[in-house]
């Protein structure tokens, strides 16, 4: 290792940089070879700790990632040796861990195994509620408390969930591998759904609903970009990225400077992020070129139509209704049904839209706030004041955001004076 001894500050910065850029890649590499996520995490975190101790003395190494990988590998081999009775597994493990390649320029080139990691986190055997948290912790290093807060789950419970999921991977010997073609679509879909769950809801079509009321938006988009880059010819991965980018592009317009809620049709399009919309459109075009339509591409296309208001100054509700009708054929979620009804309200009027809402099973919407927000505004438009008031109350009671609550309270107050 070369390098002059430097102050603790630079060593810390180097370790921090290595962490941010490489944590996921290093962990994926280690985990794919030892198949014990928790042990790989511990080994890597020990390696980072010893880097912070050693580098101020010895200098920041020329290849920090290689240093960390070596340190982590040693710990893993030791750990495994302690666990294994006969110690047979240790030499095999050491060999498996030793196959990092060094290219001609002397830079470590170890393969990017993160795609395998994503597939493992979203494996069918892993509890659905654990898949997104697992991805967030394993690849981005988020702690259980931060993840718990995003999903409104107690930190202790989230911690347990993560421990159980990692043990499952180890004990059930879940393989870190790319699924073969026959399983690809279904497995990829699980990965994309898990990424989407980190974002929250990526639409704001309905006045009084709140897009991404929970979730880790920037982390989700990071994962979306990673997936889209790792599998450039997967149409749905491109579609998911486009969907999240379109929604994120409008974030600044959703609140006034004083924090009041602004529904989509009243948003100032000048506040929408043009670079993000442009990126979303490029990605959506790339998805369409694959010729394999799917749920996320359709949802992205709907948001793309909304985005065109910035250019045409009107919303093409007929196109949106058509796209929702298509979406309902392949993914009849509650969100899609309510979105379709919202579009129908603009193309065929509130009465037709209310009929559509009636068809949504009551049990699926007891706590689904956007249903009630839409229903309330439709009933208000249809002149059914008493029913509208009740629906507004329901929507308000189910809202998680103070600004949305305030908006709906005002809309409800307007009923009395109408």
């Amino acid at each position, binding site marked *: 290792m070369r390098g002059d001894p430097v102050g603790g500050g630079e060593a810390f910065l180097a370790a921090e940089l290595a962490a941010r850029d490489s944590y996921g890649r290093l962990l994926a590499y280690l985990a794919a070879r030892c198949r014990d996520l928790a042990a790989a995490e511990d080994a890597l975190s020990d390696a980072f700790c010893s880097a912070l101790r050693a580098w101020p003395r010895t200098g920041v190494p020329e290849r920090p990632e290689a240093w960390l990988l070596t340190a982590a590998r040693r710990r893993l081999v030791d750990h495994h040796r302690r666990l294994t009775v006969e110690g047979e597994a240790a030499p095999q493990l050491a060999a498996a861990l030793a196959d990092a390649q060094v290219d001609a320029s002397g830079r470590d080139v170890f393969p990017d195994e993160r795609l395998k990691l994503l597939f493992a986190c979203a494996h069918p055997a892993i509890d659905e509620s654990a898949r997104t948290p697992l991805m967030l912790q394993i690849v981005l290093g988020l702690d259980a408390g931060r993840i718990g807060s995003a999903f*409104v789950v107690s930190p202790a419970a989230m911690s347990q969930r993560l421990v159980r999921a990692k043990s499952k991977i180890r004990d059930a010997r879940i393989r870190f591998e790319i699924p073969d073609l026959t399983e690809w679509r279904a497995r990829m879909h699980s990965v994309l759904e898990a990424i989407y769950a980190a974002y929250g809801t990526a639409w704001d079509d309905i006045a009084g609903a709140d897009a991404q009321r929970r979730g880790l938006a920037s982390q989700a988009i990071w994962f979306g970009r990673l997936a889209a880059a790792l599998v450039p010819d997967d149409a749905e991965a491109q579609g998911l990225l486009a969907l999240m980018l379109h929604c994120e592009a409008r974030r600044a317009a959703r609140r006034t400077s004083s924090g009041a809620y602004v529904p989509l049709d009243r948003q100032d399009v000048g506040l929408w992020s043009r670079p993000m919309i442009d990126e979303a459109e490029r990605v959506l075009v790339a998805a369409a070129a694959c010729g394999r339509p799917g749920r996320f591409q359709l949802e992205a296309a709907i948001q793309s139509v909304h985005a065109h208001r910035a250019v045409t100054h009107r919303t093409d509700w007929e196109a949106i209704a058509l796209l929702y009708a298509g979406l309902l054929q392949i993914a009849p979620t509650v969100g899609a049904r309510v979105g379709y009804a919202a579009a129908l309200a603009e193309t065929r009027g509130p009465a037709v839209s209310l009929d559509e809402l009636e068809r949504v099973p009551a049990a699926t919407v007891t*706590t689904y706030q956007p249903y009630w927000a839409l229903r309330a505004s439709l009933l208000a438009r249809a002149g059914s004041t008493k029913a509208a008031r009740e629906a507004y*109350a*329901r929507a308000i*009671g189910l809202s*998680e955001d103070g600004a949305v*609550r*305030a908006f709906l309270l005002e809309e409800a107050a307007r009923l009395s004076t109408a």
Partner: protein
Amino acid sequence: MKYTVLIYETPTEFEARTDAARKDAYWGAYRAYTQALREAGVMVGGAALHPAGSATTVRQHDGNRKVQDGPYAEAKEQLGGYYILEVPDLDSALEWAGRCPASATGAVEVRPNLNM
């Protein structure tokens, strides 16, 4: 399983209850929340409480009875009300706690009830 949701409000929020400009929004939000709980079939009980100034605290230590005007603890946020919910698990109780208006300005504590 039963959970108690304890609602801690700031002095500003307590004031909103009687402030002409804010009381409609304040009570409207809590009425709506209560209605949503009832219609979801999860509300078992609950009450709004008069503010901390109306509290009286009783202690009886070593045969000495001490009665104090005021709440148990002097804190900026004070208990303003509570709900008792019957839900399948803590996650569900926390989701409802997140909808309580006080979670945006004060704090909402969720505790599982003991089965007696």
